[in-house]
């Protein structure tokens, strides 16, 4: 088996060009899906029989929370690949993930808090789901702080990768926290195959939003990855062509 395709894929000039070409193919569908999901969630979906129109927070809260977990998992896998195979591009992917994930974790926490007040009577509770999500935010911030503490990129890559990989144990804890412990937070309503708990008129806009946010993440990651790859290259000839345009 030949590995040339793999090395070509992982080479900085190839990644820089490929990421640039792919970005619009993710950014525009993401924008269209999010607009469609917004219309579906705010206008087309019927009010909930218990929560009235208050339940519509789900269309921004659940996608933000999904982002917080998916981005962290991507970051940890990329960090592991970088650490094991000494692949610089994988480390660049991991480093690009952190600010995106951290900001959507903040969105998940704040929108959850705004949902909790009218439904549970409190903005915050030291509940397993809420606490583990807050720990996720600290993991992202710790990862970024640790990277910022190194002048040498390769040492920053290795040290922060270890933190990202160790912290990934928090991801299943967040997901299963509502099943394992008594939690104020409701049980999952989407990730239940076979018996969806929501009518299709409510579920469809949510699925559209989840897909839209996922594509948005890929588009943001591609742009940030190009920046990371450029910053990591020293005196390579391809850069002259890349930045002259």
């Amino acid at each position, binding site marked *: 088996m030949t590995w040339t395709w793999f090395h070509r894929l992982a080479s900085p000039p190839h990644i820089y060009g490929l990421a640039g070409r792919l970005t619009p193919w993710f950014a525009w569908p993401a924008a269209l899906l999010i607009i469609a999901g917004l219309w579906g969630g705010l206008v087309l979906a019927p009010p909930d029989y218990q929560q009235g129109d208050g339940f*519509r927070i789900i269309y921004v809260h659940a996608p933000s929370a999904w982002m917080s977990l998916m981005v962290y998992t991507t970051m940890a896998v990329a960090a592991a690949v970088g650490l094991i195979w000494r692949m610089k591009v994988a480390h660049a992917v991991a480093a690009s993930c952190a600010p995106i994930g951290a900001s959507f974790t903040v*969105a998940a926490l704040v*929108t959850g808090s705004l949902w909790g007040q009218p439904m549970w009577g409190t903005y915050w509770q030291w509940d397993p789901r809420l606490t583990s999500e807050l720990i996720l935010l600290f993991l992202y911030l710790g990862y970024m702080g640790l990277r910022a503490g190194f002048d040498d990129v390769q040492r920053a890559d290795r040290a922060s990768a270890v933190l990202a990989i160790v912290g990934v144990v928090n991801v299943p804890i967040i997901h299963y926290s509502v099943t394992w412990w008594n939690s104020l937070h409701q049980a999952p309503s989407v990730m239940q195959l076979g018996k969806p708990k929501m009518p299709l008129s409510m579920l469809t806009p949510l699925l559209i939003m989840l897909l839209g946010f996922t594509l948005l993440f890929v588009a943001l990651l591609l742009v940030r990855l190009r*920046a990371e790859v450029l910053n990591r290259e020293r005196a390579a000839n391809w850069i002259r062509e890349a*930045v002259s345009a």
Partner: protein
Amino acid sequence: MRSLAEFFDMGGYAAFVWPSYVITFGVIALNVYWARRALERARVAARRRLASQGEAR
């Protein structure tokens, strides 16, 4: 179809629903801005590096 006033009232939950949407779309907008700024800064820095290498030769 609901009236526009009813839509903005969100069944009395306006004070919680609208801030949630504003914050989430604010985070999206910031992410788009930050990502584009990061790429632009990286390009500027790369051009500067190339220029200083040119002088050294």
